């Protein structure tokens, strides 16, 4: 019986693959990577917020009508350009780009983890997920 509720001091011999020591170590590294990425992006968004609010605090906020963002706030080169021009909203978008990149980085690092464990099947699965993520990021107009 592979399932048992009895206390077992040793890891289950039937399950050498999942939840092994290597898995745990990789997970801890990835978890910390995610948290650092989020904190970094929050810091960038916050600094952008300071610049933006110091300049536009007393203008009227109106999001009733959808206009769509100009290209400086919806493409990677546009965002970088507006950050270099010292624009607060450009900095906020840069922080949001970092935020989107964080889980993508986690997926990329998982490939390394599965490769170390010589789990080719999961290397392939992870590559598929990474390809979908990169397509969404670069194939949707963000890159140009």
């Amino acid at each position: 019986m592979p399932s048992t509720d009895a206390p077992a001091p040793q890891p289950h011999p039937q399950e050498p693959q999942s939840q092994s020591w290597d898995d745990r170590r990789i997970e801890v590294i990835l978890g910390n990577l995610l948290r650092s990425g989020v904190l970094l992006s929050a810091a960038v968004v916050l600094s952008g917020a300071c610049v933006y609010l110091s300049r536009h605090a007393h203008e009227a906020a109106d999001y009733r009508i959808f206009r769509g963002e100009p290209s400086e706030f919806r493409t990677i080169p546009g965002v970088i350009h507006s950050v270099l021009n010292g624009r607060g909203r450009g900095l906020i978008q840069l922080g949001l780009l970092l935020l989107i990149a964080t889980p993508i980085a986690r997926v990329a690092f998982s490939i390394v983890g599965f490769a170390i464990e010589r789990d080719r099947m999961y290397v392939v699965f992870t590559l598929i997920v990474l390809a979908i993520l990169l397509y969404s990021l670069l194939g949707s107009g963000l890159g140009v």
Partner: protein
Amino acid sequence: MTVLTFTAVVAIVSFVAGLLGSLTGLGGGVVLVPLLTLLFHVDIRYAIGASLVSVIATSSGAAAAYVKEGFSNIRIGMFLEIATTFGALLGAFLATRIPTSALAIIFGAVLLYSAYLSRKPRPLDQRNLPPDALATRLRMNGSFPDLAGPRSYNVQHVPTGFGLMFGAGALSGLLGIGSGAVKVLAMDQAMRIPFKVSTTTSNFMIGVTAAASAGVYLGRGYVDPGLAMPVMLGVLAGSLFGTRILVKAETKSLRLVFSVVILVLGLQMLYKGFWGKI
């Protein structure tokens, strides 16, 4: 409303949504879009863009805490992410082609379902299930630390779970939410994954799923920096605070209050959607 007042009020509302979402385990994203559209009259497309960004922040921010507990199963997560990211791409693609009133109606239906699910007691974990051939081949079976020592589990019905996860991803991309309710259906009910493993693994997947559609939203100009900034910072702060006080908080009555809020917001979204007011 001036930009300063708007930013402050939206940040406070987002903080409360993030806090309640993490305390009740229902997720804050599901109430954000209705609150922004109904209370602040934000166009639903801007609201979805901002909410999606906050979903990534909560998921990634909580990941480190979840990982420490050692419940999540990265193989189940990664395999199902193929379904959720693909679904999320489809959802984000559809969102740009569907009229906003239809988006509101779908949103209302998802809110009603979430409210129903939050009142229903979770089914007890079924133990000692036989190993499933496909799940074994995919190396999904595992064990997690329980009170009485490590407890192993065997994952069931992988194709059904995969299909449901595709749907969860599509809803996430379409509505800018984490789709926790559908993920519960897929992982708890179909795949019979123990509650602790499914919740933490689902959190781990939500960020990746949301990232797949967030790229499309940002590229299409649906993510406004002035709106996304207070939403993202507020929800992140609220949910991090929530996970910190979770152990001490009395969540049963909170869950009731929150599910009533979800129910009311769902009815409002349906009403506005059907009368074309969104």
